[in-house]
């Protein structure tokens, strides 16, 4: 226990501010706050207003109250986009975190050349939501792509996976799982924080590796898991580029990759319906905020803080 108290003390000390730092901080933060105001906060409030209007972009907006919000629930494509997004989030995020944790544990064993492995596995995270990777995905999962070539060796004739309505969303989920690098790095840092003495004590007491994982690693890592979960959930709700590129902006085939944000974009910029698009954006904010709130409430029961 004393070790932990020592650590806590030194951390506490480093957090004390020296007088006079405040002004400098304000100056350094000013450009950021300016950007926040002009580029984020103002459009944000404007979109709240626009969500209650009929706004074609080309004419002045006219107030229509809650009509845009009512319309959502009668719009089958909106429901489809919500369903596509929820499936994508609920399936790919847990898988992604599991992959991240598994790899982090392998790397935590102190392999030789750890830095190289870490970079290699982190790379997809940097590239994941880029146009280039979406294009690559279209190739890999295409009718004559890498996946089908491999399947061909086993005599299996594959589809054009990205352009088949039953599988297109699946390929995008795989893409999201593949970008496990960022949560992996965070897990890796978290694993390093767990004092080795817990494991030593446990193994002296005869606990198996599995038992150690569930009774030591998971509880001590739970704040990190929680952090990653919240971040990745929000990120996944906002996915846009992959579907946009893979489907050529249509959300096809047959709306199977019609992400919420993609449908929002289509409404705003292709159907001249920016009012409706704004309402959709605010509804997404509610969904994400609600999801995050539930997460925080639930965290009481499974997240264990020990530091």
């Amino acid at each position, binding site marked *: 226990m004393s070790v932990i108290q020592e650590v806590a003390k030194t951390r506490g000390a480093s957090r004390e501010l020296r007088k006079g730092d405040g002004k400098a901080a304000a100056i350094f933060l000013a450009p950021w706050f300016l950007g926040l105001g002009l580029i984020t906060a103002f459009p944000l409030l404007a979109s709240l207003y626009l969500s209650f209007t009929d706004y074609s972009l080309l004419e002045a907006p006219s107030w229509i109250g809650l009509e845009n919000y009512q319309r959502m629930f009668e719009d089958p494509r909106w429901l489809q986009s919500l369903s596509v997004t929820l499936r994508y989030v609920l399936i790919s995020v847990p898988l992604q975190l599991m992959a991240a944790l598994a790899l982090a544990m392998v790397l935590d064993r102190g392999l030789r050349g750890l830095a190289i492995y870490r970079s290699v596995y982190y790379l997809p995270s940097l590239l994941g939501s880029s146009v280039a990777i979406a294009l690559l995905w279209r190739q890999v999962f295409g009718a004559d792509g890498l996946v089908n070539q491999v399947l061909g060796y086993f005599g299996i004739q594959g589809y*054009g996976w990205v352009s088949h309505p039953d599988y297109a969303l699946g390929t995008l989920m795989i893409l999201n799982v593949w970008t496990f690098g960022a949560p992996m790095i965070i897990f890796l840092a978290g694993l390093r924080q767990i004092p080795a003495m817990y494991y030593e004590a446990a193994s002296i007491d005869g606990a198996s590796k599995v038992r150690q994982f569930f009774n030591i690693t998971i509880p001590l890592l739970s704040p990190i898991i929680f952090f990653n979960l919240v971040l990745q959930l929000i990120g996944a709700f906002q996915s846009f580029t992959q579907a946009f590129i893979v489907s050529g902006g249509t959300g096809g085939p047959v709306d199977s990759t019609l992400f919420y944000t993609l449908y929002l974009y289509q409404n705003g910029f292709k159907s001249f319906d920016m009012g409706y698009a704004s309402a959709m954006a605010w509804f997404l904010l509610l969904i994400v905020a609600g999801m995050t709130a539930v997460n925080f409430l639930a965290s009481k029961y499974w997240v264990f803080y020990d530091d």
Partner: protein
Amino acid sequence: MRATTTRRGRTRAAFIAMTAAGAMALGACGSGSSGGPGSDSTQAEEGGEGDGVEIRFSWWGSDDRHQTTQEIIDLFEEKNPGITVVPDYTDWGGYWDKLATSTAGGDTPDVITHEERFIADYANRGVLADLESLDIDTSEMQDTVIDGGRVDGTLYGLATGVNAYAMMADPQIFADAGVEVPDDTTWTWEDFVAVSGELSKAAGDGVYGTQDIGFNEAGLSILARQKGQNLYNEDGSLGVDAETVSQFFQIGLDLQENGGAPDGSRTVEIQNAGPEGSLLGTNAGGMGVWWSNQLGALSSASGHELELLRMPGETEYERTGMYFKPAMFYSVSATTEHPEESAMFVDFLLNDPEVAALQLTDRGLPSNLSVRESILGDLEAADAKVADFMADLEDEIVDGPPVPPNGAGDVQDIMIRLNSEVLFGSMTPDEAAEAFLSEVEAATSN
């Protein structure tokens, strides 16, 4: 002691997570609009001479077009000292986002390149000027082509040039398979399906008769016209019946059944791949429907000398259905501060032979007939073929379809989705036709 550290730790971790969550949730609303590729870098020359007039000209396209257009602008500025033309260009996808956004911001370009499916949206909302009130010479343009730019009788766009939606065929693939290229003056839609199936069989593995034709409403428009109907009527309402739409979707299904076209998922994939990845472009198919100005790109992708054919069914029903589509329009902003100079610029773009000599058929086969005449000698093989083909069609084409109504920009997406439903078997052609009519009705009714 133990209790306090835990508490502090929890607050801190929660705070970090909360801040991150908040920032990203804010981002959720902000990132709905894609920034789009920036293109303002070339707006360097400001003002020019003291009392000079500055107009902004917006267009979409590839690098080639940007370079040629810059040369055209330089030429205009040279001939008209005192007027500066500021270029404002992006690719096709980003163009409409940008135009809508800059119009919303009260910063509409003075001279706007427009397109059939979007012009009514802008015209009906008062963004565009009546071109007949401006001084632009249209004496060398055909009336049917000029009328293509009218919305409710008012002229909002002048066609830069014309294209035709036509069947393209690769004679070499026909020859290798031992199948004869059909006679396009008499062939029916059934012939098209049959010959595609035959070609697929004879050509062997990996080569298909045709690429699916159901992803573009232009094909439906032609079939409707052949049967004496219209995709859209003059007043913007739908002018096509469910039977015709169903017949159109059925063609795709028939092609799947007799193997004349690739299966659903491969078809969707090729559909997204542009001319370079098309069946014709990759020597993997005998036919495909395209706009005539794409012959050059297709020919160079395939390396074969492609032929232009009339659409099937031109002699099957009541009348011919093919038409000259305005490739693009030049429009002028209704709120421009310099209507005269903008009109001068449009007049120059349409009527100056030197402009045509620079851009050739890049904005369609020039709509000004004497200008068209003047560049025929300079055309490359594929473009010359298009010019010949269009000249042959001149007598057969009855009229042009009316400008599509507000919301027509959505129709292609509806078409793509419903055609996919049919190809993947989740809807019958009849169901897709019903859905098409009601969805297009809804999209174009505001």
